[in-house]
């Protein structure tokens, strides 16, 4: 890991820490907790990447932990902007997380673990991508709120690159993925923070 990688990851961690401290205005308890968990995982993951290097990505728990970020972010967004879906999405988030955890912890036949992971990430990723853009377009938030959607697209891209890499079918060479990962994480976090700040 280069000095630049460490610097970018440190900036990512600092941005996430800042977002946790300032929070999002006028939120109830659940979205506040959901956003804190999402940015908290980003912060701790950034610190661990700096300390342990990219090898930490080889740990089996990474798949489970990395599911927490899109699930909790999307839960916060749904709770905030789509009141009628709150309960259903909360159930999906809990069941989805448990399903990913179980299929990654207990030996599961065939392609079930991959399908579960793809479904949970897909729904959460599309929610983070589309909901802020739709909310901004409908005037429920300022145009800058669409930046959260852009962050969602970037998290989806990062998740895809890492998932296929871990599945042994990398879209890009491992070196290339690791080269762009710190910058991608920083850009994604910056989009989220800017979207929540000015959106």
């Amino acid at each position, binding site marked *: 890991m280069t000095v630049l990688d460490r610097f970018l990851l440190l900036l990512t961690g600092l941005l996430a820490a800042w977002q946790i401290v*300032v*929070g999002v205005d006028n939120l109830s308890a659940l979205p506040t907790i959901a956003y804190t968990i999402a940015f908290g995982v980003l*912060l*701790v993951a950034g610190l661990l990447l700096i300390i342990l290097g990219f090898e930490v990505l080889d740990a089996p*728990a990474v798949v489970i932990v990395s599911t927490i970020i899109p699930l909790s972010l999307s839960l916060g967004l749904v709770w905030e902007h789509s009141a009628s879906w709150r309960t259903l999405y909360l159930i999906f988030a809990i069941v989805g997380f448990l399903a990913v955890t179980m299929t990654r912890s207990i030996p599961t036949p065939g392609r079930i673990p991959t399908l579960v992971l793809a479904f949970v990430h897909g729904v959460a990723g599309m929610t983070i991508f589309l909901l802020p853009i739709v909310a901004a377009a409908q005037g429920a938030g300022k145009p800058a709120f669409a930046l959260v959607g852009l962050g969602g697209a970037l998290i989806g891209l990062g998740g895809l690159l890492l998932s296929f890499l871990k599945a042994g079918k990398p879209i890009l060479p491992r070196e290339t993925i690791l080269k762009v990962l710190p910058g991608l994480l920083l850009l994604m976090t910056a989009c989220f923070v800017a979207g929540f700040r000015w959106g």
Partner: protein
Amino acid sequence: MTALVRKIRLYWPLIKPLQTGLLLATGLAGYMSARCPIFNLGTVAAVAGSLSLAIAGSTVLNMWRDRDIDAKMERTQKRPTSCGQVADREALRLGLLLSVLGVGWAAAIDALYGLIVFAGLFFDVVVYTLWLKRRTCWSIVWGGISGAMPILAGRALGTGRIDLIGILLALSVLFWIPTHILTFSIKHREDYARAGIPTFPSTYGEAFTRAVIVFSSVLAALTIGGATLLIGIGAGYLRLFAVLSAGLLLLAFAAFRAQSERINFGLFKYASLYMLSAMLILATSAF
């Protein structure tokens, strides 16, 4: 001028800048947690100066005393005191000079503050280094008490007394130190064995040591959490503190479960970052 620069370069590793810096950060955070006029730069500078000198002094004295065992350990054999670059008497004189200046300056600022700074130096040099370090692995408790003194001293200077928050802050450092030291002693267990220093891993085994690390991490997070609640820091800082504490606890449990060198090293590094971050939270939340 060149000779002076050469001397400073030689003395610099003797004060263990990172460790001294971390302990100094705890002292400043303890002071700022009292919400006293923190913009009084004169007092802040005096706290920083006196603590730096006292901590650096005790570290140099520790290194002077341990030069024989440092020479046996791969990790420390290149220290200026163990490889003879700094003469024994020179190191002793430097350690004593820094210690006297630090404690003297602290006492001149405030009697109670000076007393606590002196207690920290006494526990570190006399009780930990001279008396117990080569006898029992439990010496780290006294090293921990010594490490807890800067934050207590800073708090006591800010409030004018030793209060519950100050004791909780001191306990948090005391409980954090086993996490820091024991992960380190697992990583360098062969070095310590070569020097004949009793450590928890060599006395009680690694599994017990890792259990102690988890226990002390939980206690550290609880005590510093209690202190931050009593201080009344904002909800945002509390959230950040909770996140960082969760990271520490998860890593401690992972190190206990996986028995992995890599996670153990990660915990060692993370614990240092955790303490520094907690101190920054305490200090910045005062603004």
